[in-house]
């Protein structure tokens, strides 16, 4: 079971090579196959996640949640997706047409690209990049541009306000996010995500870096634009913020991308702090799914419990609390590494 997927890939490659294809072509075809699988899994996973979030919010709020269509309302999201697909695609006449149209597509593309470096099991990353973590963070900051495009391109004051807020927020929280990961990188001595997983053979980094995990978690919530940091959307204030003018599938793409980002960020947390696919009895790809889902549950729990923070508090929290704390964490991690090395561990 452990090497189920890697073995399938190997069998496929050798089969294609035996057909007379040059190995490089076989690799390319396999890569395209892997990408298709990721896109399909991501989309299907969002359907499960939306259902799960509605069920969990129902549980928290003493409601039932969706319960009509299929067992436990499981097909509700599929019906919703069908509805969104058949809705009229309205582009406001005063909007900047091309920017308005490309923003959601770019958003989802960036969200899916994050999965390239995530080790979804032992030896199960699409690209084994030696700067994987760096790639992840830099792609994450790109999504700011999509929100700005959506908000500005809509030519609506609410949208623009939402976009401006999201830019300010994402730039401020990008810094503690990157800083919080530096501690892990220093311990593992690598930016390669599979090597970071291997470095956690003896103990998970959550034990050595609890502060880094907390700052990562908070900054990631802000990066994901989830409650209590859902400034760009801010339903009760900005009607729907940057997404106000979007309808139908274009709106759904934003929704899809947000959930995709949620999975990616949770999977990264599982990889960096909870030993990735490590765990007893079960195969590694199952372990990472379990860990990712558990972290996502915490994200959902937070969203459905907290009120939204105010914009200026949000900024001062990042600059006055998170960044100093994450900087101090780097310093202490560095001192600790030196100290233990001196002790000869």
């Amino acid at each position: 079971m452990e090497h189920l997927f890697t073995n399938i890939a190997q069998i496929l490659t050798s089969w294609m090579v035996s057909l007379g294809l040059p190995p490089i072509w076989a690799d390319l075809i396999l890569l395209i196959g892997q990408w298709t699988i990721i896109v399909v899994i991501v989309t299907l996973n969002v359907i499960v996640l939306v259902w799960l979030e509605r069920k969990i919010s129902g549980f928290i709020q003493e409601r039932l949640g969706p319960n009509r269509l299929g067992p436990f309302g499981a097909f509700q999201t599929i019906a919703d997706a069908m509805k969104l697909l058949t809705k009229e695609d309205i582009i406001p006449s005063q909007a900047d047409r091309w920017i308005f149209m490309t923003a959601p597509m770019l958003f989802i593309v960036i969200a899916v690209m994050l999965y390239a470096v995530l080790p979804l099991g032992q030896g199960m990353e699409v690209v084994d990049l030696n700067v994987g973590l760096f790639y992840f963070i830099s792609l994450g900051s790109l999504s700011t541009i999509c929100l700005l495009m959506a908000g500005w391109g809509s030519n609506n004051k609410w949208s623009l306000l939402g976009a401006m807020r999201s830019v300010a927020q994402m730039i401020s929280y990008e810094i503690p996010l990157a800083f919080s990961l530096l501690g892990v990188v220093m311990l593992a001595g690598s930016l390669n995500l599979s090597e970071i997983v291997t470095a956690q053979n003896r103990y998970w980094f959550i034990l050595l870096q609890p502060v880094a995990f907390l700052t990562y978690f908070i900054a990631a919530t802000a990066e994901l634009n989830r409650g209590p940091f859902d400034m760009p959307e801010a339903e009760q204030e900005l009607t729907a913020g940057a997404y106000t003018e979007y309808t139908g599938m274009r709106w759904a793409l934003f929704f899809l991308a947000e959930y995709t980002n949620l999975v990616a960020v949770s999977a990264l947390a599982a990889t960096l702090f909870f030993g990735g696919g490590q765990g007893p009895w079960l195969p590694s790809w199952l372990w990472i799914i379990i860990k990712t889902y558990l972290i996502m549950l915490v994200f959902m729990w937070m969203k459905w419990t907290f009120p939204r923070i105010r914009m200026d508090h949000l900024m001062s929290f990042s600059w006055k609390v998170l960044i100093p704390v994450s900087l101090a964490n780097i310093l202490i991690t560095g001192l600790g590494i030196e100290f233990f090395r001196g002790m000869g561990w």
Partner: protein
Amino acid sequence: MIETETYTINIGPQHPSTHGGLHVEAIMDGEEVKDAIVHVGYVHRSVEKIAESRTYAQFVPYASRLDYLASHLPTLGYVQAVEKLAGIIVPERAEYIRVIVSELSRIASHMIFVGSLAIDLGATTGMVYCFRDRERIMDMFEMSSGQRMIASYMRLGGISADLPESFYPAVESFINDLPGMIAEYHGLISGNEILQERCKDVGILSAQDAVAYGVTGPNLRASGVDYDLRRDDPYGIYPRFEFRVPTGQNGDSWDRFMVRIEEMEQSGRIIKQALRDMPSGEIQAKVPRILKPEKGREVYHRVESSKGELGFHLVSDGSDKPYRVHVRAPSFINLMVLPLICRGGKLQDVITNIATLDPVLGESDR
């Protein structure tokens, strides 16, 4: 120097957090509110004009629809005004039942306040808990009057029906559970630091301004003015009950929130006392089928509604219909301080301020 300019943003009339058809024109500089202009009138139903073509008894359901979140309070104000006009003496038991249902209305209205503040600040879950508890009050209203929200329960000279047997255990268990519910709101909503940050020192209304603008009710008490009509200009049988009038100090959104939470507790106390002392007997006074008050009589009667001083000014011309009915709507007058308390704040504070002023647009626009 970068050249900047202000821009206008229309909060409402179609907006998730304006509690109905309220339109606030905010003049913004970035995220900061320079000025705000309140436009009301989107829910205008010409209730006062309708009253002139209805008999005195026929207007009761209309009064019920003024403040639909606490529908017993405006009807209480109206029927008491008519009783004052025509000199009707209400039976003891009816007075007690009126107190019980109107205090329950007050609790229901304040629960909506707490819940809508929570959802306006983004805490969806807080809203659900408040509405869950309010549901029990709605069930009790259904038992007593057959209606949940807009129960036209009051009649001229009494009430429409006596309380059913099932009402007493329901109200008793509700009053016993009330402290637990409030503790839960404190844990989930007011105990949250984000919410405290967003309410404290936001929308400060000084006692002086509050009095100058004619603000009444919990909003006035939050500014530190100890004034409650139930105690200071008592009506009905309120002097018989013992209760405290909670006040705040700073007049900010947080005080407006805490005053209302404490008022819920005090209302619970009043209901407890009313249940204990309630006599048996008649529930309806003898009122002539066609009520024709003396010509030229004029009364102004005010009650402490959950929003503030709710007054009815009735003028009789000797016919069976009032010559003029004027409603002093506390929501309307309270809303007028919104520009004052929003100036200099952030856009998000406008939402907090609207929520903590707790306007009901049905009453404000009449």
